[in-house]
C-alpha cells in the first residue's frame, strides 16, 4: 500500500467504523464512489478490525506475553558462574565440560584422593527445592551403591558454599549421541553397546532402580576401549517429580517454569507409551527406551518422531515403526519385542533381552568367522596344524555353515512371509476402530481480555465462567469430524446444540480432517461459554464417511447466530443421533494433557464433560 492510499483508506476507515451497518454502506458508497479496489481495502480493514477486537488481538501488554522469555533469562542469570582454577572445597575446577539437564558439569581435581572427577553442580532452582533435594539425596545414595562397570560411579553428593554438587568418575570419551553423529555403526558394535547398556540396567533393576531416561545423551563411550557407561541413574525421577509438582501448582507463571533451564525433561522420543501417558512406570520402560536407542543406532532415525511433541506422543501410542531394513531378522525381532506397546508383551527383564542379543552376537560372530576363513582371498594358513587335523576343522566349519545358511534361509522366508502379510495366509480383517486424540487449552479472561498464560486442561479442574477454551483434535486417519456443545440440561426447554465444528473459524469450514492433522478449534480465538452453571458437554463425532444425519448442521455454523442450531427439527435429529450412537462406551487413555478416545466400529461418539461453575 502506498502512503497516499494508506491515508485515503485510514480516513474513510476511521469514520466508517463508528457507523451502523446501513449508514456505513451509504458512507462507503459515497466515499469510494466507483473505486472498487479502494472500497475492498476499506471493507477488509473493517473486517479485520472486527475480528481483531473479537479476538482481543494484542489486547494485553507485550511484556506479559513475553514474560516467559524474560524468566528464562532471569533463571540463567541466577546460576552462579564457576570459573576455571576456582577451588570448591577440596575440588579444583579444571575445565567446564558442558551443561546438562540438571546443571553445569566441570572437570575437577579432588585433592584428597588426587583423582580427576566430573563435578555436576546443580542449578539453584533444583537445589532450592527441599523436598526434591531430599529425594535426590536418597536416589544418589542408592545409585552410588550400584557397583557395575557399565554404570558411572558416584563418588560424592554434597554441598559447598551453598552449591549442591555431585562428584562422579570422569570418563574420557563422548556421549553416544556425539558418537552417532560421526559414525555409521556396524551391527557388531551396536550389539556390543546395547549389551553393555542392558548389563547396566540389569544390575540397576535388581536394586529396584529404574533409569527412566535411557537415551544416547545418557550413554558415554570411553575413548580408549569403547567401554559403555550409563549416566544419571536415579536422576530422571527427580527431574520428573519436578514436572508433576509443577503441574499440581499449575498457575500463572507455571508456563515459564516448564521450559526454564533445568526443568527440561529430555526428549519424548525415547519415552515408553506408559511414560508418555504419565502412568506408573517400572523397569520395562527402560527396555522400551533401549529398543528405541538400538533402532536409532541401526537406522540413524527415530522410530517415533512427529512434527511436534504431541504428534510424537501419538505416534508412540499408536504407530508401528518402519522395519529396520537390511539387518538380521533376529535383531528386528528383538527390537520389536522391546518396543511392544503393552509392557506385559515386552521383554520383562533386561537380562532376557541381553541373553537374546548375546546369542545373536555369537551367531553373527561365527558367521563372520566362516565368511573370513572360507573366503578365497584370505587363505590364512593355520601355522603348525597337521594336514589331517586341518581338514577336520574345515569340515566342521562347513557343516556349521550349512546349518547357519539354513537358519538364515528360514529367517528370510519368515520375514518375507510376515511382510506379505495376513492377506495371503490368514485372512482376518482387523477390527474396525476409530481413534481421536484431543487436548484442551484454557485461557482465563478478565474484563474481556486474556488474563495470565493459557494452560492445558488436565484432569479435574474447576471450570470457571471466565475460562475460554480451545480444543485440539487429531485422528490417525482422515475422516469427518463434528463437534457439538450441549449446555447443562434444563427441565423445561428441549436440548439445543451449538455447532462447534465444522466452523467458519477452523479448518476452512470443512468437516473433513486429514490423517494426523491437528485441528485447533477455533484456530485463532477461543470458545466461550455462557453463565449457566452445570455440566457442559462437548460431543465429538468422528467417522471415515460423512455422516448423513449431521449434514444439515453446517448451515448453522455462523458467527451471526453464535453457531446455535435454531431449528427445532435439526436439534432433534442431533439429539437422537447422539443418544443412539453413544451407547457404546469408548475406551479412554488419559495422559497428562492428552486424552485418546478409541471406539470399536466405524463411528466414534464421545462427550467431553466440562464442569462449569
Amino acid at each position, binding site marked *: *500500500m502506498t*502512503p497516499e492510499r*494508506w491515508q485515503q483508506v*485510514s480516513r474513510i*476507515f*476511521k469514520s466508517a467504523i463508528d457507523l451502523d451497518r446501513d449508514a456505513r454502506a451509504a458512507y462507503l458508497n459515497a466515499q469510494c464512489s466507483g473505486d472498487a479496489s479502494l472500497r*475492498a*481495502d476499506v471493507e*477488509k*480493514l*473493517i*473486517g*479485520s*478490525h472486527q475480528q*481483531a*477486537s473479537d479476538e482481543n488481538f*494484542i489486547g494485553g*501488554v*507485550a*511484556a*506479559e*506475553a*513475553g*514474560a516467559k*522469555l*524474560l*524468566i*528464562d*533469562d*532471569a*533463571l540463567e*542469570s541466577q546460576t552462579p558462574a564457576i570459573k576455571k582454577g576456582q577451588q570448591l572445597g577440596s575440588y579444583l575446577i579444571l575445565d567446564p565440560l558442558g551443561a546438562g539437564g540438571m546443571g553445569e558439569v566441570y572437570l575437577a581435581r579432588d585433592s584428597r584422593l588426587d583423582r580427576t572427577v566430573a563435578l555436576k553442580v546443580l542449578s539453584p532452582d533444583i537445589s532450592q527445592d527441599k523436598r526434591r533435594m531430599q529425594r535426590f539425596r536418597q536416589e544418589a545414595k542408592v545409585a552410588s551403591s550400584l557397583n557395575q562397570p557399565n554404570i558411572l560411579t558416584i563418588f560424592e553428593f554434597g554441598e559447598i558454599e551453598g552449591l549442591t554438587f555431585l562428584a562422579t568418575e570422569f570418563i574420557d570419551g563422548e556421549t553416544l549421541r556425539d558418537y552417532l553423529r560421526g559414525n555409521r555403526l556396524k551391527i557388531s558394535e551396536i550389539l556390543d553397546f546395547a549389551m553393555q547398556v542392558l548389563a547396566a540396567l540389569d544390575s540397576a533393576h535388581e536394586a529396584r532402580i529404574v533409569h527412566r531416561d535411557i*537415551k544416547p545423551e545418557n550413554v558415554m563411550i570411553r575413548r580408549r576401549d569403547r567401554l559403555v557407561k550409563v549416566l544419571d541413574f536415579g536422576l530422571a525421577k527427580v527431574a520428573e517429580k519436578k*514436572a508433576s509438582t509443577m*503441574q499440581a501448582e499449575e*498457575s*500463572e*507463571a507455571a*508456563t*515459564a517454569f*516448564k*521450559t526454564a533451564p533445568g526443568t*527440561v*525433561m529430555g*526428549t519424548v*522420543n525415547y519415552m515408553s507409551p506408559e511414560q508418555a501417558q*504419565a502412568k506408573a512406570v517400572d523397569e520395562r520402560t527402560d527396555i522400551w527406551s533401549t529398543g528405541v536407542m538400538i533402532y536409532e543406532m541401526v537406522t540413524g532415525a*527415530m522410530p517415533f*518422531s512427529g512434527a*511436534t*511433541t*504431541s504428534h*510424537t506422543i501419538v505416534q508412540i501410542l499408536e504407530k508401528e515403526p518402519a522395519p529396520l531394513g537390511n539387518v538380521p531378522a533376529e535383531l528386528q525381532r528383538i527390537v520389536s519385542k522391546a518396543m511392544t506397546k503393552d509392557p506385559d508383551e515386552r521383554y520383562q527383564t533386561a537380562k532376557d533381552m541381553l541373553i537374546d542379543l548375546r546369542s545373536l552376537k555369537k551367531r553373527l560372530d561365527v558367521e563372520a568367522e566362516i565368511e573370513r576363513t572360507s573366503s578365497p582371498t584370505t587363505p590364512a594358513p593355520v601355522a603348525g596344524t597337521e594336514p589331517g587335523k586341518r581338514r577336520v576343522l574345515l569340515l566342521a566349519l562347513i557343516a556349521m555353515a550349512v546349518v547357519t545358511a539354513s537358519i538364515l534361509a528360514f529367517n528370510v522366508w519368515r520375514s518375507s512371509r510376515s511382510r506379505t502379510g495376513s492377506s495371503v495366509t490368514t485372512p482376518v480383517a482387523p477390527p474396525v476402530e476409530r481413534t481421536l486424540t484431543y487436548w484442551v*487449552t484454557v485461557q482465563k479472561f478478565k474484563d474481556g481480555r486474556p488474563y*495470565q*498464560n*493459557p494452560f*492445558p486442561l488436565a484432569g479435574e479442574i474447576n471450570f470457571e465462567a471466565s475460562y475460554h477454551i480451545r480444543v485440539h483434535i487429531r485422528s490417525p486417519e482422515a475422516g469427518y469430524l463434528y463437534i457439538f456443545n450441549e449446555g447443562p440440561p434444563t427441565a423445561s426447554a428441549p436440548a439445543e446444540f451449538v455447532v462447534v465444528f465444522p466452523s467458519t473459524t477452523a479448518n476452512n469450514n470443512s468437516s473433513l480432517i486429514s490423517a494426523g492433522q491437528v485441528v485447533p478449534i477455533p484456530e*485463532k480465538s477461543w470458545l466461550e461459554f455462557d453463565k449457566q452453571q452445570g455440566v457442559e458437554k462437548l460431543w465429538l463425532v468422528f467417522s471415515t464417511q460423512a455422516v448423513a444425519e449431521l449434514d444439515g448442521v453446517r448451515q448453522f455454523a455462523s458467527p451471526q447466530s453464535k453457531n446455535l442450531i435454531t431449528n427445532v427439527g435439526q436439534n432433534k435429529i442431533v439429539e437422537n443421533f447422539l443418544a443412539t450412537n453413544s451407547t457404546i462406551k469408548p475406551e479412554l487413555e488419559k495422559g497428562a*494433557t492428552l486424552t485418546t478416545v478409541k471406539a470399536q466400529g466405524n463411528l466414534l461418539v464421545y462427550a467431553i464433560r466440562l464442569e462449569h461453575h
Partner: protein
Amino acid sequence: MTQAPRQHEITELLAEWRDGNQSALDELYPLVYNELHRLARRYMSRERKGHTLQTTALINEAYVRLVDQKNVQWANRSHFFAISAQIMRRILIDHARRHAYAKRGGGAQQVSLDEVAAVASNCGRELLRLDEALKSLAEMDPRRGQVVELRYFGGLNNEEIAGVLNVSENTVTRDWNMARAWLYQQLTGSGAN
C-alpha cells in the same frame, strides 16, 4: 538502595534529546536498556510465582532510579516513557530472537511434555512477526506505529499515550483501531498486500 550512577547525566541527555539532539538518544539508549533489562529480570525472578510483569511499574521504577527527580520537567517523563516503550520492545525482541534460534534445530525435541510449553515457545516467534509488521506500519505511518509501541510494548493507556504524543485521546483511540486492524490483517494474512 544504590543509586544509578549516571542520574544527572541521564536527565541532561533526556533534555538534550527533547531539544532535538538525536545523538543524545544514542547515548541514552544503552543506559536505559541496561536498567530496564536488569529490572525486568529481577522482577521476573522474584515474582515468578503468579505475578504478571507490570511494564508501567517497571518503567516507573527505572525512571525514578535513572532520572534526577529534583531537576525534572514533566515533558521529560513522557519522553522517558516513549523511549522506554521502544526499549521494552527491543528487550523482548532480542529475547524472542535468541529463543527462536536457540530452540530451533536438533533432531529430538526438548520438551516438558506439555502443551503449555508449546504455546509459550510460539510466543517468541509471534512477537518477532508482530515486530516486523510494526516496522512496516511505522514506515507508512510513524504516529500509528508509535501508538502501538507505547501501548503494547510500553504498557501505557490511551490517556498516557495522548500525553506523550501530544494529541487527543480520541485520536489515540482511532489510531489504535486502525493500526491494530492493519497489523491483524498482516499477521493473519487475511488482507490486501
